[in-house]
């Protein structure tokens, strides 16, 4: 039933303090928000904390929300800004590259445990995951966010431009450069 209610309408209810609508909204978008952050920063524990922070901001700014654009664009904008700022402040704290908590390895195991893989396959998958994640982490922040939003969330250049607050041609350029860089990084892996 909750799928019938658009997120924009839920936001109007949340602005009036409706916690049930907020729960529907969180349930609906938590996986996509969590995974954007996880693929962007490469750490599950940090990603969970940041995803909670995103929804905290959604709750706090519900009263000021105006449905000018798609709700997901607004939500991803909060997500992207929060993730990029968090990385910047982490670097300022001299955690370069981004500090990975102890939970990140377990996260990979948990991810693959659902697929009933043999121990060898699990090991291969872990290695594959690590290499892809490392290649992604080697990209500059804006390129990485653009590629994550395009590849995993299937957003259009227009939407990504709105989220990253830049032009469509800038997004195109970010994605082309990111793809070339990834191609070089994953060259051995692709053979």
């Amino acid at each position, binding site marked *: 039933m909750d799928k019938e209610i658009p997120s924009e309408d839920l936001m109007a209810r949340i602005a009036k303090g409706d916690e049930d609508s907020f729960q529907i909204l969180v349930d609906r978008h938590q996986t996509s928000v969590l995974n954007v952050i996880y693929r962007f920063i490469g750490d599950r524990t940090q990603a969970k904390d940041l995803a909670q922070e995103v929804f905290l901001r959604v709750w706090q700014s519900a009263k000021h929300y105006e449905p000018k654009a798609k709700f997901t664009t607004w939500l991803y904008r909060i997500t992207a800004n929060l993730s990029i700022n968090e990385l910047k402040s982490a670097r300022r704290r001299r955690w370069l590259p981004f500090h990975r908590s102890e939970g990140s390895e377990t996260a990979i195991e948990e991810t693959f445990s659902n697929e009933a893989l043999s121990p060898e396959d699990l090991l291969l998958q872990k290695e594959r995951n690590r290499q892809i994640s490392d290649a992604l982490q080697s990209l500059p922040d804006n390129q990485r966010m653009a590629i994550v939003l395009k590849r995993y969330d299937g957003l259009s*250049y227009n939407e990504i431009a709105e989220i990253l607050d830049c032009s469509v041609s800038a997004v195109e350029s970010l994605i082309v450069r990111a793809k070339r860089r990834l191609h070089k990084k994953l060259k051995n892996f*692709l053979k």
Partner: protein
Amino acid sequence: MECRSVQKKFSAYQDRELEPREQERVKNHLQICPACREQYAGFEQVWQTLEGLKGVHPDPWFYRQVVRKIKEPREQVLFPTRQHVFRFFRIPVAVSIILIVGLLTGTYLGSILARFDLFPFPSSPVSDSRVLTSMRVFDPAPPGTLAEGYYRMASYKESDSR
């Protein structure tokens, strides 16, 4: 269509961001050009490889954690040093306040007692003789000095001779 201009559009073609007509052109070119097809295959491989990075599932208690964050007081998180600073200066501030209050009270009480002459201990008013003695320091022969001794001796001899 030139290979170079097609290759520039590979990324947008892959992301289906070209105009339908342009999309069709690139598609047709790829069918007839093996060199471009090979290069485009590289783009496709990268895209396929990225799919290998699996996502994670949120915890079942994710919503409850968000609600807990909403309800917990933010002031302590935003100003973590305020309490620490107060704790550090607590004792010096208390001592200073006690000293200032004591000083002001003492001054006030002292002024009242002095005004109404209510001191519990006897005052030691300076005697008249002492005042007079002290005034004599300006004499040619002040009391207690060698000059006074000579003066007395001279006066005594004078009175004797008379």
